[in-house]
């Protein structure tokens, strides 16, 4: 879409007003997924497989159904028939198979049946009366083991066109890209380093577990309230899984206590609706934390081989990587994105990357902030760091020397438009953190990170009230402060105070389709749509003023919240404020609203550079991050406090991923640590103050220059922290998380 209305001077954008949901959140008035109730409501509970891989021979639900408190029991037979297709073409089938197992249980925690009863306790008790006869099958939970020819086959026929015939059926997608001649490039290098790296699966760790309340009548009409990052995808998917018309299911998104990509699909929502259809009463399901860990999507785990060649002056001559990602028992692990992001910060003549999507007997992976990119950065930036150390080169100077700029041919193909990587590196070099002395036992790490960002289908509606206040309806659940950002952008166009605009996340019956709040798209795409919808309203307001004054429409312009004559020849009229036009709108042509619907294409990629200082306890192997600075290109920060919050949040989650968080599977194929006691996310006392620097290199694809900021902030931390820990420990850390036992083992191996 052509943008002929770019704006770079602002009155409201860039200020830091109070958040609109602040009082609701601190008083407990905000309604999250589990806060919705209905008269006659039943409680649902889900029976889950204790086996990593097993054929379901028989399910007998008769004893559970005989209980007076039990009003419905469902199994796979209660869902629609959905055709199977290989790869991601079969994603609806994949989601159904994950929501409720078919012939086989595919991982520890896989849903096999569900109950609706008059209380949550009665529902859980009834699960114990469901008899499932399993035939246990061999299983595999490790990505490299799953690719070996002797690995148990999880599902034949799941591989798409991209996978060579001689690969194991567990390999379901393959991506290969790059340019130049890497072998020639390596031959030019003074030093070539080849190394291998691993990252473990981590959960998004949102504090609010999945929760929903669903009702579905035998007439195929239903309502659903749930916590989600995107209620239109919930509507579409549930309709497909239950065999009803999409428009007959109205979905309302609750407040959301974190998502980070993990709430971009469905788990319990179709189950609640299937139970409701059978029981003819509303059904509420709330996951326990253990269920969240066992049965919702963690990120993919990765095994990676990297080779980079460098000249003595720091010029990178060639780079190649192989990225093997497991995403549970379904296609979808982002091997392709991992490969495409891996070398994106560099201007490379010779680059080659291959990514694999591999199935294992684990839960279906879900997106987690810039899916694939953090792992890739960990592996690549570790090797670049090692080259700098061996060649005694400054890590920022080397990155500047090889940095991607406007016009650089990206490692994934096309040339970059205007990007801000160099600006983040220059800001890092100039930051006091980079020059600060380190104490003995401490190490400093640097890393760059990259993410694509996204646009997506977007609809926005803006309705003016008679008193001049504005209701703005968007369809993207607010996971990062978007209500504040939308109000600021609307205020900027309308010229009225931020406080006069109320932003609501509309339900699926009130607005056109909206893609999920993912891909760092909301401030970009819903923001662009908000600006356009506000301009649509301004056009209509100006028309009313023109009619009142009896002058042509094009003789009116909009300034500081008022219609004014466009010049001396247009006539001599006092400015007409918005509220004076809306006060009469019922009598001057009817209600005034603004609308915009589009799929904006121009999200603009983004880069970040992080600086980390870490300290390693040589006796326990415990790591403390003592100083952290995030520098990222935001294009234009609409509400800088929220942008800084995104930067800090990415760093905090990255610290958890780098140091402690991991899915641990036992020999029995079961998840060993399905709770926050044994799966350790960072708490406030684990974190230093995370300093932030907002770089603003405007995105040409947005009227105000916005680039998404939600995901790029988690791309550099794994690598930056690993580089800091490696420097502090004096040994290269190749396996995340760098938990105390793993770091201690590395220290011992170094000394041995």
């Amino acid at each position, binding site marked *: 879409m052509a943008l002929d209305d770019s704006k770079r001077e602002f009155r409201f954008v860039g200020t830091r007003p109070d958040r609109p949901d602040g009082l609701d959140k601190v008083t407990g008035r905000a309604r999250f997924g589990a806060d919705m109730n209905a008269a006659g409501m039943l409680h649902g509970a889900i029976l889950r497989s204790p086996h990593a891989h097993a054929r379901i021979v028989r399910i007998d639900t008769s004893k559970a159904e005989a209980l007076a408190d039990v009003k419905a029991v469902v199994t796979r037979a209660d869902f629609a028939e959905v055709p199977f297709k290989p790869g991601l073409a079969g994603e609806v089938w994949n989601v159904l198979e994950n929501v409720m197992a078919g012939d086989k249980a595919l991982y520890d925690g896989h849903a096999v049946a569900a109950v609706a009863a008059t209380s949550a306790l009665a529902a859980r008790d009834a699960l114990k009366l469901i008899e499932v006869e399993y035939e246990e099958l061999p299983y595999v939970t490790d990505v490299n083991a799953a690719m070996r020819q002797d690995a148990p086959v999880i599902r034949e026929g799941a591989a798409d066109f991209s996978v060579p015939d001689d690969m194991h059926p567990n390999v379901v997608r393959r991506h290969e890209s790059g340019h130049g001649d890497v072998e020639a490039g390596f031959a030019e290098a003074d030093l070539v380093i080849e190394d291998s790296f691993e990252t473990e699966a981590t959960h998004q760790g949102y504090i609010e577990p999945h929760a929903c309340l669903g009702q579905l009548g035998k007439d195929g009409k239903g309502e659903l309230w749930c916590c989600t990052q995107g209620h239109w995808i919930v509507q579409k998917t549930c309709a497909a899984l239950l065999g009803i018309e999409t428009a007959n299911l109205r979905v309302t998104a609750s407040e959301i206590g974190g998502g*980070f990509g993990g709430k971009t699909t469905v788990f319990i929502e179709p189950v609640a609706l299937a139970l409701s259809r059978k029981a003819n009463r509303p059904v509420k399901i709330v996951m326990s934390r253990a269920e969240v860990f066992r049965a919702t999507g963690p990120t993919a785990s990765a095994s990676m081989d990297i080779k980079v060649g460098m000249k003595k002056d720091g010029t990178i001559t060639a780079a190649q990587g192989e990225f093997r990602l497991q995403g549970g028992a379904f296609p979808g692990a982002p091997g392709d994105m991992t490969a495409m992001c891996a070398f994106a910060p560099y201007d490379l003549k010779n680059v080659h990357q291959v990514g694999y999507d591999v199935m294992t007997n684990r839960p279906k992976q879900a997106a*987690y902030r810039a*899916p694939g990119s953090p792992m890739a950065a960990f592996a690549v930036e570790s090797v670049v760091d090692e080259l700098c150390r061996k060649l005694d080169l400054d890590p920022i100077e080397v990155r500047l020397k090889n940095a991607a700029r406007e016009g650089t041919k990206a490692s994934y*193909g096309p040339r970059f438009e205007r990007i801000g990587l160099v600006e983040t590196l220059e800001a890092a070099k100039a930051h006091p953190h980079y020059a600060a002395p380190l104490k003995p036992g401490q190490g400093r790490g640097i890393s760059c990170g990259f993410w*694509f960002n996204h646009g997506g289908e977007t609809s926005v509606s803006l309705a003016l009230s008679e008193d001049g206040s504005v209701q703005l309806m968007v369809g993207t659940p607010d996971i990062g402060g978007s209500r504040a950002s939308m109000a600021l952008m609307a205020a900027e166009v309308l010229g009225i105070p931020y406080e006069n605009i109320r932003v609501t996340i509309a339900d699926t019956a009130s607005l056109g389709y909206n893609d999920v709040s993912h891909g760092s798209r909301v401030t970009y795409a819903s923001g662009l749509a908000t600006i356009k919808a506000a301009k649509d309203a301004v056009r209509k307001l100006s028309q009313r003023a023109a009619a009142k004054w009896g002058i042509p429409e094009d003789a009116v312009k909009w300034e500081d919240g008022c219609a004014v004559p466009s010049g001396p020849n247009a006539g001599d009229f006092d400015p007409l404020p918005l509220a004076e036009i809306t006060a009469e709108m019922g009598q001057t042509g009817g209600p005034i609203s603004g609308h915009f619907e589009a799929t904006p*294409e121009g999200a603009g990629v983004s880069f970040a550079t992080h600086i980390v200082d870490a300290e390693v306890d040589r006796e326990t192997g415990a790591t403390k991050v003592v100083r952290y600075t995030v520098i990222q290109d935001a294009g234009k920060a609409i509400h800088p406090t929220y942008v800084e919050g995104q930067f800090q949040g990415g760093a905090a989650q990255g610290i958890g991923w780098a140091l402690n968080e991991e899915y641990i599977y036992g020999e029995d194929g079961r998840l060993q640590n399905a709770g926050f006691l044994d799966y350790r996310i960072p708490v406030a006392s684990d974190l230093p103050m995370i300093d932030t620097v907002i770089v603003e290199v405007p995105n040409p694809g947005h009227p105000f220059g916005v680039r998404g900021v939600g995901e790029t902030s988690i791309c550099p931390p794994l690598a930056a922290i690993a580089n800091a820990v490696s420097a502090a420990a004096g040994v290269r850390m190749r396996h995340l998380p760098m938990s105390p036992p793993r770091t201690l083992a590395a220290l011992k191996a170094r000394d041995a």
Partner: protein
Amino acid sequence: MPEVHLWSGLRGLADGKESVEVEAGTVGELLDALVRAHPALQEAIDAGVSVAIDGRIIAGSLTEPVPEGSEVYLMQRLRGG
């Protein structure tokens, strides 16, 4: 005619070619023309692709114009979290 560059994983489906010239004014026409020239690309395109036109990434819109002489790259369909 725009020249469409393929990621290397696709070249086996297009007689080993790194790029294909097609007659097209929009992204949708471009994808249709690619499949006409190399039918084996159908599955890859159905599975989802994004297109970069002179560096600007078009995630999924088929109606975006493809200017004469532009540099076009086919990309794996982008997904986010």
